[in-house]
């Protein structure tokens, strides 16, 4: 688009328009350049880097205790799970065994984060597709979960509750009571979500049969998380490579074979129930004991490479640490779920209508700082 606002036209007669970087439906500063034939999308090109903070370079000069907290700013909606991934990677290098109590608390907070994240996604999906009320419903229940986080971790979003070898502090005395209260609230309201949005004809019309992604494409493009599971790809790291005791809890890996926006919507709705069930299994069974393994003041990882993958609310996060034996990492790579999920967007969006792009973006559930890092 030029400065007068006239759209650019290619020699083939395709309109080129820009969505973003400040468009609300891109959920952050992502710029999509879209080639249109009428209203049909011919090509999409994502432009990113607007909030590239070079977290990987920064981590090279931070100690193994400090670099963990920078990752809260990657996927800020599931900051706690990012921190867990880093802590686990350092623990793998140090070969320390985390106390059972710390593991269970990590897992509980992780699932609360996932639940809150999916609620935020649900509210925003409604907002993107023209329904304003769901946003307020979702935030009402999400607030109860964030209050629990606030009380125990001292922060609502960037919890920073992890240390290598365990957790920073013990949980607040009110923790179990507050979590149960929050779950009771969420459970009593979940049916309202379905009545308000899931059953809505307009929503179904905008999601069903839109933005199809095949299982082969999902694997080939490295798509993970609920987005891939909606295409029938089993990829839940919690099941494949269990960490923090996920092998001991009962839950189902939610799969759907639809592959369209509707399937992605339904997978996340069902995952919320799984998260609630995991929390209910553990909330009364937090073992007593230590919350931190004994570690040295200055951590030094042995020479070598360490890879840790966890399941964040959006897919597989991988932390790859290369150590040369010094007190800070030689190289760190974050394999972030949103980065790979976005790479499938240009394929999925081809042939869709411009309005469908908003549905696709909403159900991909992209968090832009996680892409840029």
């Amino acid at each position, binding site marked *: 688009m030029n400065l007068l606002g006239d759209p650019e036209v290619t020699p083939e007669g395709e309109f080129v328009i820009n969505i973003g970087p400040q468009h609300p439906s891109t959920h952050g500063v992502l710029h999509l350049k879209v080639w249109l034939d009428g209203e049909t999308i011919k090509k999409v090109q994502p432009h*990113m*880097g607007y909030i*590239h903070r*070079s977290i*990987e*370079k920064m981590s090279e*000069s931070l100690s193994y205790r400090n670099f963990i907290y920078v990752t809260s700013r990657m996927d800020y909606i599931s900051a706690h799970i990012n921190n867990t991934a880093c802590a686990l990677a350092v623990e*793998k290098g140090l070969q320390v065994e985390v106390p059972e109590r710390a593991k269970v608390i990590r897992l509980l907070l992780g699932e609360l984060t996932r639940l809150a994240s999916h609620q935020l996604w649900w509210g925003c999906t409604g907002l993107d597709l023209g329904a304003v009320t769901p946003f307020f419903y979702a935030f009402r229940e999400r607030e109860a979960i964030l209050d629990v986080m606030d009380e125990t971790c001292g922060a609502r979003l960037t919890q920073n509750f992890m240390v290598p070898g365990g957790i920073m502090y013990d949980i607040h005395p009110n923790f179990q009571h507050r979590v149960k209260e929050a779950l009771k609230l969420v459970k009593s309201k979940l049916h309202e979500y379905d009545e308000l949005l899931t059953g809505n004809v307009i929503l179904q019309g905008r999601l069903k049969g839109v933005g199809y992604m095949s299982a082969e*494409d999902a*694997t*080939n*493009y*490295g798509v993970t998380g609920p987005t891939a599971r909606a295409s029938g*790809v*089993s*990829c839940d790291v919690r099941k*494949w490579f269990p960490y923090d005791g996920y092998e001991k809890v009962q839950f189902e890996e939610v799969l759907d074979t639809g592959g369209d926006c509707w399937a992605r919507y339904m997978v996340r709705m069902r995952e919320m129930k799984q998260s609630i069930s995991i929390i209910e299994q553990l909330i009364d069974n937090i073992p007593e004991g230590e919350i931190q393994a004994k570690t040295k003041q200055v951590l030094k990882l042995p020479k*070598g*490479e*360490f*890879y840790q*993958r966890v399941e964040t609310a959006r897919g*597989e996060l*991988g932390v*790859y640490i*290369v150590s040369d034996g010094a007190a800070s990492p*030689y*190289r760190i*790579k974050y*394999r972030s779920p949103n*980065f*790979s999920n*976005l*790479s*499938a967007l240009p*394929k999925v969006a081809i042939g869709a209508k411009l309005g469908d792009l908003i549905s696709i973006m909403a159900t991909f559930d992209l968090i832009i700082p996680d892409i*840029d890092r």
Partner: protein
Amino acid sequence: MTNEEIKQEVLNRFPATTFDETGEFLNVQAEPADFRSMMESFKKDNAFAFDFMFCLTCVDWKTHFTMVYHLLSRTHRHNIVVKVKLTDIKKPEIETICDMWKTAEFHEREVWDLFGVNFKNHPDMRRLFLDENWPGHPLRKNYVDENMISI
């Protein structure tokens, strides 16, 4: 397959390969000349069937670059890490593999942007995050920026 079986299968096809098993995964050190054909057999051979590339990155060792490819087979549930040493630090270059694993397309652009490794035959070799005329490649160890501060 177990790591031992994978090793045997790789050696049958590429006898010059060396391995490293000190870490969590089996590491394969590929020769740049063998690299394309090795990756092709990892992807297409039913014995390997590495259909999911979960990480692709580069490490700057000051004397050389190492490309690191993490692969997982969802059918056989085995992992492998392929490493390629790029000795030309002035103009590092390697064949692209984004025709086999589409996810590599963005990852390779990221590596080009931040490390300056050129991928031959890549369909869209532009910078990913930074501006096209940004000087240098930030994740290189010898990168200096006048705005960099040390704490």
